[in-house]
């Protein structure tokens, strides 16, 4: 950080890291991935939340949700499997008990949410639409760990379009749709949600995986399968973001195994406007601060004045 500031001082200005996603102004392109950062307050002791591009909440549903039986997590090589099952406090308790904390932070709050049914998606959207502190929403149609609540909508382009259309109608806010990689061709779903009115796409959610305890011969997760995240999935995520960026006109937020600034840069270069950091928050609770600092330092070293010079700059 010190080096970086000195370097930028000699050039007279610091690189501009600010980006905009569907009208949401971000100080920099770095934000947490839903489900890895609680409701923000859990990480307040470890980094200044005011420095983040945005805060993305744990996925919310109409009513509180219990989640899956345990064990819910298992570590695998360069990653982890999770099957939390979307445990959350519910949208009303979020607004009542969790949002007041976020209101005091000078960083846009993006609320991730899902529904068990089409109607529930619509209802949660309606309840969030009136809340001024919610800068935008991220629609989860991609959780692999519960039958309802996502993936049934996210793997079928028609169903995906239907839920996006409904939410769009009920919501007067920027709408980001989070896509699953567990499909044959992600660009088909990406085009479908873009045409249905999504303002941005975030991808990817976790890849469905499984691990077995060879001694007990049982699955290591009670849910049998779970979502794989962490550095293990990054090359797959970069490829999918690259494909989605080419398929749609709306901004894309890249997610998948980002732990360092270089990882984030890969996504930006293939065309993501911003990135989300997930599993890395568990390993290092201040990972996002380090990534932001190192992004700035990279720009200084490379003589880049604005992060937009990097976004979509892939040479083919």
């Amino acid at each position, binding site marked *: 950080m010190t080096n970086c500031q000195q370097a930028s001082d000699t050039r007279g200005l610091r690189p501009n890291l600010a980006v905009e996603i569907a009208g949401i102004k971000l100080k920099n392109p770095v934000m947490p991935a839903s*489900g*890895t*950062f*609680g409701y923000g307050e*859990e*990480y307040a*002791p*470890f980094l200044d939340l005011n420095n983040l591009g945005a805060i993305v909440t*744990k996925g919310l549903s109409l009513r*509180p*949700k*219990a*989640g899956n*039986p*345990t*064990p*819910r*997590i*298992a*570590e695998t*090589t*360069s*990653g*982890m499997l*999770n099957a*939390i099952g979307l*445990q959350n406090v519910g949208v009303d308790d979020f607004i009542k008990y969790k949002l007041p904390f976020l209101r005091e932070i000078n960083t846009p709050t993006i609320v991730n949410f899902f529904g068990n049914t089409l109607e529930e998606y619509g209802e949660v959207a309606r309840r969030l639409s009136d809340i001024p502190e919610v800068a935008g929403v991220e629609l989860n149609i991609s959780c692999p760990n519960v039958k309802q609540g996502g993936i049934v909508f996210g793997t079928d382009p028609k169903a995906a379009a239907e839920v996006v259309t409904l939410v769009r109608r009920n919501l007067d806010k920027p709408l980001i749709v989070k896509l699953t990689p567990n499909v044959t061709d992600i660009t088909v779903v990406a085009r479908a949600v873009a045409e249905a009115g999504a303002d941005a796409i975030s991808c990817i959610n976790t890849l469905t995986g499984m691990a077995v*305890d060879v001694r007990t011969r049982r699955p290591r997760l*009670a849910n049998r399968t779970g979502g794989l995240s*962490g*550095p*293990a999935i990054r090359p797959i995520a970069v490829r999918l973001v690259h494909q989605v960026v080419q398929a749609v006109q709306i901004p894309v937020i890249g997610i998948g195994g980002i*732990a*360092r600034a270089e990882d984030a840069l890969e996504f930006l270069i293939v065309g993501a406007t911003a990135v989300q950091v997930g*599993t*890395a*928050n*568990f*390993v*290092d*609770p*201040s*990972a996002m601060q380090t990534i932001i600092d190192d992004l700035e330092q990279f720009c200084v070293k490379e003589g880049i004045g604005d992060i937009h010079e990097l976004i979509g700059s892939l040479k083919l």
Partner: protein
Amino acid sequence: MKNYKTMVLSNQEISPGYYRMRILAPDIGTTARPGQFIMFRVQMSMPSMLRRPFGIFRTGFLAPDCVGLPPREYLEILYKVVGQGTGIMSELHAGDRVEVLGPLGKGFDPGNPGEEKILVGGGIGLVPLFMLASELVKTGSVRLLMGGRTRDDILAVTEFERLGVETYVSTDDGSLGEEGLVTQVLVRKLDKYPHASVYACGPMPMLEAVQLICAARNVPLQISLEALMACGVGACLGCVVKGAGHSEQNPRYLCSCKEGPVFRSEQLDWSRLGEEAGYCEGCKI
């Protein structure tokens, strides 16, 4: 609660497969409460490996390097090598850089001074009981019932004795102390001291047995749980256990990391604790 970039002071095998690591720990030494834990970052170079939770065994002060400087705080963890993470840890040396997040979680409630206290430790489960014992001996008599499979699983007993704790050792194979389960000793002690409070940490079958014994006698029980964790701060919801009164319609999950790892026995849904819990018996990963 902070993330400390710090270093290893020593790391020694104290019994086959069990290690004691001393880490320089500014602040944690004086702020940690008995029963709290740390998240230890095993690997600094690669960002992929999750942290491992470890109960704090004890904290203390080292003499300063030279006159006039404040004493340096340290903390100690005891751990069993059970997998890749703890395997890497066992090869760390004095001076190696490590990262420690803590102190985390809710610790033990010391209870009423003067009352009889019985601590029950199974294997590596004795770790969080040492700091507790150091505090409890100041106000009353403390007994430690320590169980393990063999003599190799019985750790740090002399250190408890040095505190003035009366210790009773039992092993499954009789290789040290009495032959049999630690819970048999507990029953005898509770016959003698029916008004004692019990504090326990160890493998799930032991905790379940201790819970049944204490519930039948109306003896207050606090237990420290071990769980698979990713974050340690209440964000990932990976380490939850079912609380008392839990049902599908009215879910009551408690985070082991934030609402625990120490729970009063009546906070938990014991009927399904053992069958579903992701206890790792010293972190299997």
